[in-house]
């Protein structure tokens, strides 16, 4: 317990989320993974507790306190189940975030209260089969015809794609303007032109539904343009810090769960007449894991504090995400190692943590992109 720096409120939220994750999420995580679906009642419950509106202020029905509280809550939920942490983090940052910042009064009134309370789930359709890190190179087209936008194209890796009621879709409105020709749209997922093609079969976070989506003559009112025409890329890149703090916290949560499983196992598993934690090579591994976890938390909470204070933190958020996601793979790998052969079995939770952790180095900006951003920011580093 080293939480002197947390406010009473932040501690209460962390403790509630921990309790909730321990009792309601962790025991069911494995069955959700098999089903490829997080229980609907759990998502409803998370909404009622305010966990799905943590970046939305109270006036819009949300429960924003600050990014520290958010990071702490994502860590706890992810320690219960990485897929549930993904749902939470993605819904908060790219489901609610863009409407909060760019929505018109009408769009906010229509969507924010239901998103913030979890009655509606949001998804984000940016990535396309050939446009991942190169996010601006989109092919999905939006054309204005008789007062309606008509969207056509293919979207890839849409988290919460099947569960969502609302999608934020990015498309090219003015091809001749290049990066400045992209725009964002609000597309209710019950639109007949919004077609979920398939749920992807993933290595980890299998209970998080990740879909391929086709926009097939998807007709929406002109008023569903989000923000200004041509500002699509700015909207897509507007909350990188918040999103990265969320994924860093998710990685931290998964890794902590793996560490705690390994610690518990090492205390009980007897080899050569004593618990394996008393064997130096295992003890050293656990010491490294604990140190790396705590170092990560400092990075994540530091970025969260800067973000809450409205200070620039592009580099700090990228550092937290880079460090947390790479730490998570190492720590989860050690956790499997400490479990030996049993760690490779589904009967123990660590093989799932190991698989779940891997995505955190890829989505919300890969490690390579994070390094690129951190290096770019070095231009402003004063010697």
């Amino acid at each position, binding site marked *: 317990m080293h939480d002197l720096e947390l406010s009473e409120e932040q501690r*209460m939220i962390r403790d509630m989320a921990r309790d*909730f994750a321990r009792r309601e999420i962790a025991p069911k995580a494995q069955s959700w993974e098999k089903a490829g679906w997080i229980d609907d009642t759990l998502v409803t419950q998370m909404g009622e507790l305010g966990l799905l509106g943590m970046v939305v202020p109270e006036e819009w029905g949300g429960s924003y306190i600050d990014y520290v509280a958010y990071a702490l809550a994502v860590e706890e939920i992810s320690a219960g189940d990485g897929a549930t942490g993904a749902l939470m983090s993605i819904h908060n940052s790219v489901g609610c975030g863009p409407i909060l910042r760019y929505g018109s009064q009408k769009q906010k009134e229509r969507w924010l209260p239901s998103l913030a309370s979890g009655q509606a789930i949001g998804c984000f359709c940016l990535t396309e089969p050939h446009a991942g890190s190169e996010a601006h190179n989109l092919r999905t087209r939006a054309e204005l015809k008789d007062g309606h936008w008509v969207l056509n194209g293919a979207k890839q890796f849409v988290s919460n794609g099947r569960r969502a009621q609302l999608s934020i879709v990015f498309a090219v409105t003015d091809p001749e303007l290049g990066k400045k020709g992209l725009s964002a749209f609000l597309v209710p997922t019950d639109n007949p032109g919004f077609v979920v093609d398939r749920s992807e079969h993933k290595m980890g976070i299998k209970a998080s539904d990740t879909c391929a989506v086709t926009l097939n003559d998807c007709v929406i009112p002109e008023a569903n343009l989000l923000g200004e025409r041509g500002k699509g890329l700015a909207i897509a890149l507007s909350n990188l810090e918040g999103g990265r703090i969320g994924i860093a916290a998710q990685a931290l949560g998964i890794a902590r769960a793996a560490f705690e499983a390994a610690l518990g196992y090492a205390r009980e598993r007897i080899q050569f007449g004593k618990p394996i934690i008393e064997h130096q090579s295992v003890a050293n591994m656990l010491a490294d894991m604990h140190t790396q976890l705590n170092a990560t938390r400092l990075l994540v909470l530091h970025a969260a504090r800067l973000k809450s204070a409205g200070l620039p933190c592009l580099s700090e958020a990228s550092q937290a995400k880079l460090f947390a996601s790479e730490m998570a793979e190492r720590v989860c790998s050690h956790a499997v190692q400490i479990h030996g052969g049993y760690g490779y079995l589904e009967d123990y939770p660590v093989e799932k943590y190991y698989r779940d952790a891997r995505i955190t180095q890829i989505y919300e900006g890969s490690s390579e992109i994070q390094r690129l951003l951190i290096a770019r920011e070095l231009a402003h580093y004063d010697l």
Partner: protein
Amino acid sequence: MKVLVPIKRVVDYNVKVRVKADNSGVDLANVKMSMNPFCEIAVEEAVRLKEKGVATEIVAVTVGPAAAQEQLRTALALGADRAILVEANEELNSLAVAKLLKAVVYKEQPQLVILGKQAIDSDNNQTGQMLAALCGYAQGTFASKVEVSGDKVRVAREIDGGSQTVELSLPAIVTTDLRLNEPRYASLPNIMKAKKKPLETVTPDALGVSTASTVKTLKVEAPAARSAGIKVKSVAELVEKLKNEAKVI
């Protein structure tokens, strides 16, 4: 109807406690503290009574150090309307706590006092009963069901071999057992609201209560470590050992 809910700050139920090296007590340095689980059940029951329209106001009270405000805030986040901290830094025994609570009962005049049957730190199971005796109120301990109608409260009590239902005249004291309810989680909006609810601090002196103890803790020791088991070679040897060593058959 006003409901008073006394709660206690204790070591979190997930913590594996360690006895201090000098055997003076349990080591609380850097240990996570939480609301006693039985007290959470008491808060939940009071909140449900308020939701049913039976209770009109819920007052949470604790006797403890300034840090126990955290647990009062949790009670406020769960639905209590206001809170009272009786600030006492030394560890008090059950009788001293009951005397302090009696003073709060006299001041607040609740119709119902709901509290946990025991706290998981020292497992005394005394405060509720002592409070009932000091106040001269009826008591329904180990409640698994609580129903208020008019000026009576019906309490189903968990007893050896079954359940006993008693009817108490209000004002009364009820202590909660595990099966009474399943406490809710404090939602984020309610955690935010809790910050704005009133929390008053009083001292034992101001309540006119002496907390001098008549009980002194001499020594606290960890349970003896279990000795390792043995393997027997045959059923005959097992039976022999059960008969003559364990003396269970």
